């Protein structure tokens, strides 16, 4: 680099700065204003990062969440298509674990034990028994997104794992990849279907349908991050666990009082 700056050239270069500053100073705010004008409903996905909390100790297994989910999201009626479902765990004193979920718990659960205390079922004493609601974990590191060959399932900017129904080819890779069994193939459209955290509701500022109807606040919805939400409070106050942490999927559905037997 043998080129050197003489004084004349330097001054000439310096003269370019004021106009450039003015031009940029005008463009910046105009761009910002234009961006604000685009956003009519005031929803900015980058400002949110959704997650859910489930307080296992509060769940009464009434199945209202399952009903609400089916109605709200037009999930097929057959008792094996669910975006969310409730499982009942029964741990016997001999260590045997029994899990059932009759029709996903949509009509509640039949009594399994007699009315004695401690309760007895099938002649065996029950050590503990509880309900565990399940749904898509909206993993931060979602295996279903990795395997999709066409990019029809993805993690949105607000942290929700969604399915692009118009673009899904129905190959079922994602259904196999999900370690939580949270996906199914919609028999009507032959596309993958799953919980969206009721994306059409949360973007309007409403709660997901299952959270709205939960009578005991066993389901807590909110955001991860600085914003004050009921979830943030729950996460601060409770010992949290996630399902299958060893899978490294980094789930965003957090459970409190989760029993070691829950898979």
């Amino acid at each position, binding site marked *: 680099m043998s080129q050197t700056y003489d004084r004349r050239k330097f001054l000439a270069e310096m003269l370019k700065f004021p106009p450039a500053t003015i031009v940029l100073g005008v463009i910046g705010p105009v761009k910002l204003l234009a961006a604000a004008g685009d956003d009519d409903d005031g929803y900015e996905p980058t400002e949110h990062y959704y997650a859910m909390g489930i307080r296992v100790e509060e769940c009464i297994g009434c199945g209202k969440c399952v009903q609400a989910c089916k109605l709200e999201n037009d999930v097929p009626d057959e008792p094996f298509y669910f975006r969310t479902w409730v499982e009942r765990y029964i741990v016997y004193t001999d260590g045997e674990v029994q899990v059932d979920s009759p029709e996903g718990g949509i009509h*509640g659960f039949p009594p399994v034990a007699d009315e004695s205390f401690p309760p007895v079922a099938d002649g065996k004493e029950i050590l503990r028994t509880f309900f565990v609601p399940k749904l898509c974990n909206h993993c931060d590191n979602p295996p279903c997104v990795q395997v999709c060959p066409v990019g029809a399932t993805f993690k949105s900017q607000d942290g929700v794992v969604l399915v692009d129904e118009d673009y899904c080819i129905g190959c079922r890779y994602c259904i196999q990849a999900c370690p939580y069994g949270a996906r199914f193939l919609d028999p009507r459209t032959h596309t993958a279907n799953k919980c969206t955290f009721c994306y059409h509701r949360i973007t309007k500022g409403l709660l997901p349908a299952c959270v709205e109807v939960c009578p005991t606040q066993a389901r807590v919805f909110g955001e991860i991050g600085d914003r004050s939400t009921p979830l943030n409070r729950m996460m601060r106050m409770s010992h949290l666990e996630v399902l299958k942490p060893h899978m490294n999927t980094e789930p965003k559905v957090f459970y409190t009082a989760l029993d070691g037997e829950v898979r």
Partner: protein
Amino acid sequence: MIKSLLRSVIALRTWIRGWRRGSSSRKIPTQVIQLGVIFLAVGVGMFLLRQKFVPETFGDLGHYRAAAVAANAELELRYAGWQECAACHPDKVETKNASFHRNVSCEACHGPASDHTNRPMRLRPELPTGREPCLACHRYLASRPTGFPQIIEERHNPVRACTGCHDAHDPTPPESIQECSACHNTIARSKAVSPHAPLDCEVCHDTPAEHKMQPRAHVPKKPFEREFCGTCHARDAQPPEVIRDVDLTVYDIPRIDLITHGGTFVCWQCHYQHSPEAR
């Protein structure tokens, strides 16, 4: 094809070497031009195919169609949210929010209501009746958390609808009635688990007010003829007003033919009225 391609590549290499040394002529050999044409054709082809097959808005935000996010957000609402209910029914919501049901949203019992909020006069949400809607949450199940209020339905006023005693919007259990049961506890207990549970004592026993003060001097009346039981149990009897909060779809009143049933016996010679076993 591959051979000619190889030849072109070799020609390109020799030409570049020659050009570097400055010895070769500056003219581009035909093989190199051929190769260039092939590359250009492949490139243009790829570009056109991409234009055709990669959907619009794909890759705007990531490896997906940005339009799919909007499509997911478009679904129609079914559950309106309790805030919508509170706009028109503030009294109900206020009562509920001060009661044990404060965290139960309206639509948990009344079902999805956005059809109703869109056209309030034409479509009404469900009105839960009978015992089953309450039992969905309050039936005893061993798996429910300790401390959650639960009942054993066979022992908790079996045939009575829940709303007969509890207001669903303010479900605090009513004070137990200490009127007759204060003295006649055994009778009250058998009656409470019998089909006659919803009947007040006064339905059958016309009791003078002084009975509480001077029980022996003012004795309540007892039924003394078959026709009294027949007011409910005769074949053509209408269910009287006193049992209107009983869910008659679950429990039906047993009917008999008053003339032929039981011969000359009166009812209480075979049935115990406080726990009638006939079903």
